[in-house]
Each structure stands twice: as C-alpha cells, then as structure tokens.
C-alpha cells in the first residue's frame, strides 16, 4: 500500500519532469524569438498566430512530403514571412506595435485554420526522438527520457542568443537599436534594418516552436492546439527580464506547470485535474502581478520597446 502511494508520487514527479521537457519546447522557441524581437525594440504579439501557422505548415508539409524535417523548415520560413509582415507594418511611425500584433494574431490563426481544415484528421510523420532511457528497465523512465532533439536545440539557442547579445557586433547593434534608436542612428547603426532582421528571425524561431506541437506525439493538427502558449510566451519574456538564459529557465517552469494536470490525471487523481490544467494561466497572471511593480515598468526593459519612429 505504502509502496503504491510512493510509486504514485514518484510517477507524478516523473510525469511533470518529462512534461516540462516536452511542454517547454514551444515556450522556449517563442520566448527566445520574442526576446530577440523585443531586444531590438519591437513587440510582436502576433506570436500566437505565428505559432499556429508554424504548427499547421509543419503538419501539412510533413504530411505531404513525408519528411518532418522539411515540415520544420517550411514552418520556419512561413513564420519568418509573418514576422516580415509585422515588421513591415510597424515600420511606420504611427503604427502601434500592440495593435498590429493583435491583428497579426487574428490573421495568423485565421490563416492557419483556413488552410488547416483539410488536415484535421490524419497523422503526419513525426520528428525522430533521442532515446536516453534505454539503460532503464522501467518503462516510465524509458518513455520519459525519449526526448525531442528540438529540446536540445532550444537550450542551445538560449545560450547562443546570450552569446550573440554579449559578444557579437550584431548583438550589440540589436541592443542599441532597442534601447535608444536615436543614439543608435547617430553612431551609424541602421535601426530599421536591424529591427526588421530581428523581427523576421524571431518569428521564424517561434514557428519552429509551433512545428514541435504537430511533429511530436500525438502529432495531430487541431485548431485548439496552442491554447494561448504564444501569448504566454510573450509574457514570459517580461518575467525573464529580456535575458535569454532566464527565458530558458522560465520556459521549463511553464512546461512543468502545463504538465501538472495531465500527470495528476495519469496518476489517477481525476478530481481536480481540470483545475491543474489551468496552472500555466494562473502562473502567468501571478508572475505578471509579481514582476510588474505599481510604480513604473519592469527593470531591464529595452528603453525604446514598442516605440516607433
């Protein structure tokens, strides 16, 4: 009896850990993409639309071509295109980033739903998994340690982005453009071009996060697939204070919160799992309330964030 309870708790912990790894991938890519975008001074709220378009495109291309890697590439390209639309729209001084971003959420998700209609049923070829658990006899551990390569890519991306911001000329230019465009221009930095590049690259990365949602078990496309993760990832960047390494940590936290409900359900706790399913949303609200002080914004924000012209 006692052993069962212990097994059960162990199962929940393992489930949450495995879920954190699996569920963090969209958060990782979207938040790192948004981090890059916002460091350049732009806000792209349209990440929710990018995520859905990425998911749908990856699914469709993988299904048609039979290659999930091709699907991944196509998703990144489509995401980058949506980013270019956003950056193009908000390049004009009087276009508001937030308003354009909301329009891009609707545009991206509408487009994804429209083209995705015909793909609702089948299952597309999925990305291969890296098997790290073959040493274990326990099937639970074995399945928990079958990890998507995208997870490692995402972690590496966090460190790479950190390196870019600290140690590369381009990274310094992105930060300069985001913090004080006037000063940046005066030392010869092409602010508009930098922002365009950062927004396009950021949206391309976010779309890879979307691709993961359809190219990983159970590998089906449905309209409710993102569940607002694109928007939560934007909030996550604020919580991470625009630092790529903190983005990685925060993405893992959100992934874990998301896995809490399903893990409890799998362990037989049927009662409250709906409540626990809401934990990422509650977490978002709680973190926002904690990090945004009443008196003036969050420290670490790029100085010209969301201001055009």
């Amino acid at each position: 009896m006692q052993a069962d309870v212990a097994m059960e708790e162990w199962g929940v912990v393992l489930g949450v850990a495995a879920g954190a790894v699996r569920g963090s991938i969209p958060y990782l890519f979207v938040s790192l993409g948004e981090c890059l975008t916002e460091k350049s001074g732009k806000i792209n709220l349209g990440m929710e639309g990018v995520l859905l378009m990425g998911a749908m495109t990856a699914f469709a291309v993988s299904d048609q071509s039979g290659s999930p890697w091709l699907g991944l590439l196509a998703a990144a390209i489509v995401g980058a295109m949506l980013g270019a639309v956003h950056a193009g729209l908000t390049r004009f001084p009087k276009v508001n980033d937030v308003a354009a971003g909301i329009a891009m959420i609707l545009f991206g998700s509408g487009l994804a739903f429209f083209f995705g209609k015909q793909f609702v049923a089948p299952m597309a070829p999925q990305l291969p998994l890296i098997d790290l658990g073959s040493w274990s006899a326990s099937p639970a551990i074995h399945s928990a340690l079958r990890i998507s390569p995208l997870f490692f890519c995402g972690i590496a991306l966090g460190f790479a982005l950190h390196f870019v911001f600290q140690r590369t000329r381009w990274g310094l230019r992105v930060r300069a453009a985001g913090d004080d465009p006037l000063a940046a221009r005066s030392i010869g930095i092409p602010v508009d071009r930098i922002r365009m590049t950062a927004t396009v690259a950021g949206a391309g990365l976010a779309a890879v996060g979307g691709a993961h949602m359809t190219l990983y078990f159970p590998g089906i496309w449905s309209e409710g697939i993102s569940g607002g993760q694109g928007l939560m990832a934007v909030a996550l960047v604020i919580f991470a204070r625009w630092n790529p390494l903190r983005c990685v940590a925060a993405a893992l936290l959100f992934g874990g919160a998301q896995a809490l409900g399903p893990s409890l359900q799998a362990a037989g706790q049927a009662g409250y799992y709906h409540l626990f399913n809401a934990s990422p949303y509650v977490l978002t609200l709680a973190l926002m309330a904690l990090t945004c002080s009443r008196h003036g914004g969050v420290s670490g924000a790029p100085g010209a964030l969301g201001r055009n012209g």
Partner: protein
Amino acid sequence: MRPPSIEVRGIRKRFGGVRALDGVDLRVEPGEFHALVGENGAGKSTLAKCMLGINAIDEGNMLVDGTLWSAGDPRLARQHGIGMVFQHFTLIPSMTIAENLSLPRPGLPAIIRWKEERERLRAFFANAPFQVDLDARISELSAGQKQKVEILKELYLGTKFLMLDEPTSVLTPDEAEEVLIRLRAMVNRGDLSVLLITHKFREVMKYADRVTVLRKGRTAGARSVSATCPEELAGMMMGETRTIEVVERDAKVGGPVVFAVAGLRTRGDKGVDVLHDLSLEVRAGEILGVAGISGNGQRELVEVIAGQRPYHQGRISVNGERYVPERECMQRLGIYVLPEVPLRNAAVPGMTVAENIALRQFDRPPFTHNGLLSYAAIRRAGAELINRFSVSPPSPDLPIETLSGGNVQRAILARELGGQEIRVLVAANPCFGLDFGAAAFIHNRLVDARNRGAAVLLISEDLDELLDLADRIVVMSAGRIVHESIRSQADQVEIGRHMAGHAAG
C-alpha cells in the same frame, strides 16, 4: 596625426524658406581653442552640422588642411578626424561604457573579443583626459559623467577637430570647469583643436584663443580673445541697434512669509521617496532661488505644487492657509506656476494660443455668460496679452504647439502673469534653451512680479541665473535643502560644492 586646419568660406544653407546660414566664414587653426557664439537661431548648430556633413551645404566651400572638401557623410568626416559632441546624448543607456566606446569603433570584428577591446581601451585611457569605470552602465551615470563619456568616445574614435554644442549646459560649475580645463590641456599639447559652441561669455574669455560671432546666419566678426571683451561680443551678437531693458530690483527687503512648504515627502516615478522632509519659505517681495543638479527632486517639487503629483506627507500653505493644488484654490490664493517644458506641463498642445491663455479664467465672466463660452472674449483677451508679451507670430488662433519654445514660454507667462494679483509665482528653468533676448524678457517679468510683492520661487539649473536674480539661494540635493545663503554672501564655489553633494556632514 595632428589636428587639421579647418576653414569655411561663404557657407549658405536653407531649410525650406528659412535662411539658416547666409554667408558664414570661419577658420580654426590646428591646435586652436575656438569659440562660436551667437543668439538662438543664429545658426551655430546648423553650421557645425554642415561641417560634419549631417546637413548638406547649399553654397560655399569647406577646406580641410587647405584642400577643398565636400562634407556629405559624418562617417567620412570621422575618417578625417572631424567629430562632434551633440546637445543630446548619443550613448546607449543600458550598455556599459566599454560597450558604448567599442560599438562605433570602425573595424570592430563580428565576434567581439572583449579581452582585446579592453586592452585597446586601457591603452587609450593611459593618455585620456578623464578616467571612468569601464563597467559602469550609462543609465547609472550623472549628466556630467555622460558628457565626459561622450567626449571620450569622440577622442577614442580618433577625433582631432572636436566640435562641442553647449557641452556645459548640463554640468555643475565644477564639472564644467574640469571638462574645459582638460580639453584646454589637450589643445595646449597640440593633440586637438576645439570648436566650442556656447552661450557663456565667461567660458569664452577663460578658455578660448579666438572667437567667432554669428548673427542671423552671418559671421558678425571674429576676434582674438585677448583683444575683446564680453560687452563687445554681446554687441556683435545682437547688432548695435537693439538694447535690452533691465528692470531694477527694489532695494526693499522681503515682507512676511507668504509661501511655505513644510516637511514635504513624495515619491518619484520609480516609487521611491525623492523629497525627504523638504521645507522652505518664501517671503513677499522675495525671489528664492533653488539651485541643484537636475534629478534631485526639483521636477517632483514643481509637479506637487502644480497638482501633477500627489504627496503623502507635509503641508503647503499660502499666508497660513492650507494650499490644495486645485483650480479653485489656486485662484483664491493667487498661486501661479511656470513649469519647465511648458508645452507638455502647462499647455494643451492642440488648442489655440488664445484658448491656452484663457485656461485659468475661461469659466468666469467675461469669458463665460450663463454657462456658455464667449470665444470672442477669449480671442480679444488673448490678442491683448499676445501683444503685451510679444508672442510671435502674433496670432491668437494658431495651435500653441506650432510656436517655438521661447514663444510657448511667453504665452504661458502671459497667462500666469497676465492680470490677476499674484501672491506666489513658481518658475522652473524658465529660460532653458532660450537666447539672450528672450531670457532677459522673462527675467524682467520675474523681477517685476517680485517688486510688486509676489513671493517668487525660482528653480533653476543655471547658477548664473540664480546669482543674478535671487534674494536668497538654497541648494537642493537628493530631495533635501542642504545649504542656504543670502544674496550678498552667495559664493559660487561653495554652492557648487553643495550641488555636487560633496559637502555632506
């Protein structure tokens, strides 16, 4: 590399229909400290930007080391060692000094090796005029330190002919002194030529070798500093025909205390206290000057008095009666405010000049009858005040945002000083960025109000202005009054030390 010789001949520049430069000649020898003076709008900054290549030159020549040079690109100017420190900062606030100095360096590799960059910076700092902490973030620096970093950045990038656009306007007297002394030393060593754009004759007389005076886009003359005097320069700047009216101060000493602030505490934008138990008293017929470096709570103090910021402790009173910063109370107690950046703090930008002038009185006769506004009365009163306060262009119907800074200032001054009996007048940096003539006009109005018995609180970053006008000077530092001196005993050095916060304890 020695500093180049720089010469411009007959430069003209138009912006639309306005002739900004209309025949300017200027010559700066290698290793010379040259001053450029002139009223606002005389074309000083435009000339510098033309020489740097930010503005294209319409007509005329520029010679660098005797050869014709067509400026067209600031980057090209940089290659020839021509650089400029602007009035606005060009540093990235969230970055460190090391990052700010390295980022614009030509030849910075795509992957930065900070060890090498630091080696380079260390070598540069062995001979630099100021020492700074390379790891300090710009946002943590005072205006004075930022100004030093701006200069260091130019020198690091190899500037040999350095133009500075009113570099001392954001500095304390001590800092200004230090910056100019160090630059002067570099010029003396022959490492640098300087073109200093300034309003302050004291700086010209003390540091420059030669001075060129601009008037209305033309060179009014050039002098050797040893062979001229401030009076001659002022005459050249303004033309011989204009004279400046001076309102004399009444000799009488102040009356009873009219305006009192006691134990005031308020929070700044970031939520921390910026005023700590601030107390001050202003007497009738007295100008109390508040000196201090910006960012020590002056702005917040004015905002509290103007009703823009709540306070959570303390008391403000006029003639012993508690003052509540609301319209009705302001009017009853006769308190008027001339805040800094009046277009933002004291005007509705899209409304006309006349409407803005009527903002204090619009809901009472003659402007309102039976609850209806009379625009005719508003326009008539506006036109009269526009005339009296020489607002230009003299039209009551233009949106106030279309006026120049000095004229917005005049229009707001007209509203605040227009007719009513003034018991208290609060003015914050009323002459910031205004030229000679406009500043003198506003100074006269302040002295006038004082002579008529008003209690005037003058908050200013310009110590010369305070020494000129105030009956008493207090120094504000970190949200407190830290020093007080009366007019006859005011000592600029002592006040400067308190402003810099060096006199604690």
